[in-house]
């Protein structure tokens, strides 16, 4: 599928989201849980702002020295018997992984949750090559059965409820029990256990790779990444090229920030690391290990004003506080990366052509920037995108450009400005009834379609100020 999901125009996607009452109910209650969880976890930690600063510094340092740390990581993984492949594009990554799978004559592949493999569309590639790919994260497994893309980067099936999940299990897997979460989970566990045991290859994403040791680390609550990495003899980890930390010490800080910011947990139930292949003195470990480091547009972001977007640790805190996401849901963004970070990252990775609406899908309320555990100035990045769309790409509508030409003249010529403010009430008079405008003309229509617009004041402030007696009302 790749980073872009669906071909419907942005407005249609948004409308579909708005009309999906069930999804909106699920999103708002999940947002409520995640928000209070994050705030509570931050409070327990105490100096949350200091932690954020530390997180930002670690990410910024790592990105500034990315070549060094990538080389170190690569050396360490190779030293431990792993093979490292740098993929410049999604196609290169997919081709490499496909070749590994083919060489192993693998029939079944188990996967733990990974956004970067969603981004490059890995599953489709492997399925086309004849392998069976089984997602083992519960949410991803449900979505895979329904052929539905994720709507959230941490809880991908957020938009589905237990009744829908029961139906999916029943129609796709012959499930016969109720929609009690415990029963559903027990069934999923039984089904997935069989998959783990019969898989030939395990594919994982990567939360953070530790450069000094070559350990690729995953945080999960279901423990599925542990089973994916522990059972099949052949292992492949896929990581975005920015997802690493220098040492275990920084990993500690980043995992602390990630789990708290994401779900309000001090720590997830499982933190799993895989470091190359089984060594001579070890009792277990993979026979064959591959680390695929994916660029896919990331290096283009390095050194630009958007570099801090690569600081993202995929915690979804920005998504959980976003009031736009709240009402339109994840699929409206048309990208595997939804919400504020998706609106920033998607045009950077996949261009403006298909995603130019995303930077405008925000009121610039800055809730995202406030929530980000690594201090990415998300709302400022959105304004920068708008600037590029308008001034460099010249993709803004002509009517808007004309209006903004008018704005510049208005704002820079006080006499014209003054005259227009004086005329406003009169100009809007034909549409005004009882001091209210309910069906405004031109650009006002978008406003009055959904709310009333007040009639301008009878006298402008500046007119009043000029004639008033000091200390008096008039």
């Amino acid at each position, binding site marked *: 599928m790749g980073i872009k999901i669906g071909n419907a125009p942005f*407005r249609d996607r*948004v*409308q579909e989201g*708005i009309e999906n009452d069930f999804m909106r109910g699920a999103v708002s209650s999940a947002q409520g849980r995640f928000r209070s969880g994050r705030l509570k976890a931050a409070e327990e930690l105490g100096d949350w702002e200091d932690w954020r600063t530390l997180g930002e510094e670690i990410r910024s340092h790592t990105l500034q020295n990315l070549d060094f740390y990538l080389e170190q990581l690569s050396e360490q993984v190779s030293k431990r018997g792993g093979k490292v492949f740098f993929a410049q594009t999604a196609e290169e990554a997919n081709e490499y992984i496909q070749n590994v799978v083919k060489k192993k004559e693998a029939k079944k592949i188990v996967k733990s949750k990974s956004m970067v493999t969603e981004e490059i569309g890995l599953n489709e590639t492997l399925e086309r090559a004849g392998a069976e790919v089984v997602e083992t994260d519960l949410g991803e497994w449900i979505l895979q059965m329904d052929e539905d893309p994720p709507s959230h980067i941490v809880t991908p099936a957020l938009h589905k409820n237990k009744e829908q999940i029961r139906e999916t299990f029943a129609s796709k897997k012959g499930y016969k029990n109720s929609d009690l979460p415990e029963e559903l989970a027990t069934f999923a566990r039984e089904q997935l256990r069989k998959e783990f045991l019969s898989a030939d290859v395990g594919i994982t994403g990567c939360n953070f790779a530790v450069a000094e040791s070559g350990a690729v680390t995953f945080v999960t609550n279901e423990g599925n990444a542990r089973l994916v990495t522990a059972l099949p003899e052949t292992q492949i980890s896929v990581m975005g090229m920015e997802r690493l930390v220098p040492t275990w010490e920084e990993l500690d800080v980043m995992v602390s920030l990630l789990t708290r910011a994401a779900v309000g947990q001090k720590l997830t139930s499982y933190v799993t690391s895989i470091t190359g292949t089984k060594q001579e003195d070890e009792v277990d470990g993979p026979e064959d290990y591959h680390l695929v480091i994916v660029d896919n547009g990331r290096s283009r972001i390095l050194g630009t004003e958007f570099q801090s977007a690569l600081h993202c640790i995929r915690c979804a805190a920005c998504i959980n*506080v976003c*009031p*736009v996401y*709240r*009402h*339109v849901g994840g699929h409206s963004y048309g990208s595997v990366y939804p919400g504020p970070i998706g609106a920033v990252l998607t045009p950077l990775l996949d261009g403006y052509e298909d995603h130019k609406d995303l930077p*405008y*899908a*925000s*009121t*610039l*309320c*800055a*809730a995202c*920037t*406030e929530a980000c555990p690594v201090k990415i100035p998300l709302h400022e990045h959105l*304004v920068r995108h*708008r*600037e*590029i769309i*308008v*001034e460099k790409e010249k993709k*803004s509508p002509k009517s*808007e450009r004309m209006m*903004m*030409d008018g*704005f*510049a*003249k*208005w*704002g*820079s*010529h*006080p006499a014209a*400005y*003054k005259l227009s403010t004086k005329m406003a009430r009169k100009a809007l008079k034909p549409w005004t009834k009882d001091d209210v405008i309910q069906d405004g003309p031109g650009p*006002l*229509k*978008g*406003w009055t*379609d*959904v*709310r*009333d*617009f*007040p009639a*301008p*004041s009878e*006298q*402008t*402030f*500046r007119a*009043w*100020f000029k004639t008033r007696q*000091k*200390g008096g009302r008039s």
Partner: protein
Amino acid sequence: MKVSLFITCLCDVMASDVGKDTVEILERFGCEVDFPESQTCCGQPAYNSGYVTKAKESMKQMMKAFKESEYVVSPSGSCVAMLHEYAHLFKDDSEWREVAQELADKSYELTQFLVDVLGVEDVGATFPGKVTYHRSCHMTRLLGVTEAPFKLLKNVKGLELIDLPLCEDCCGFGGTFAVKHSSISEQMVKEKTEHVVETGADYVIGGDMGCLMNIGGRLSRDDRQVTALHITKILNSH
């Protein structure tokens, strides 16, 4: 103390009472208020839409208008946050860099000015009624003014302040967003006004006219018996 009022284009045209109340409040605390006539708009509508070059034309006019001012005070957190941003936007422009920084340093939102500069927490106002407060996003998150309005409201006689559920969520105004994405904006303002009504307050008050026009416009459309008021109205009531 000499204070120049930055009225904001919205208050100048749409809500001149906000300006009148602001002037009277400032004068009550000994400020000598002037109104530089050549002021226009802070440039935010163009800036936030991506028209940075166009926005700068308006911004330069604003810097000229307030060049001689000692303090610039405005009844809008959002517009003052924009003025503060000038320092960053003109940092590489040798002609405007200094004046941009000066304007940023001397500009205050009204409640911020009263509490932080004048040291006033009790303006001596009386306003009998139940109110809830909408903390606007730019005022709180960009300008960092979170406590000042509450300190002032706490001392208003007769006023009962009721917490607004989910007060951290944007009302859906977002400048041109309200028009450009009116369907999303509608859902946001709908939820916001439902929370306002839920409080049982007679008034929803705030420090930014854009948000108040949005919330008030939706309350009016739905025939709700709650009035949206700018905080200056409360602070200038006796």
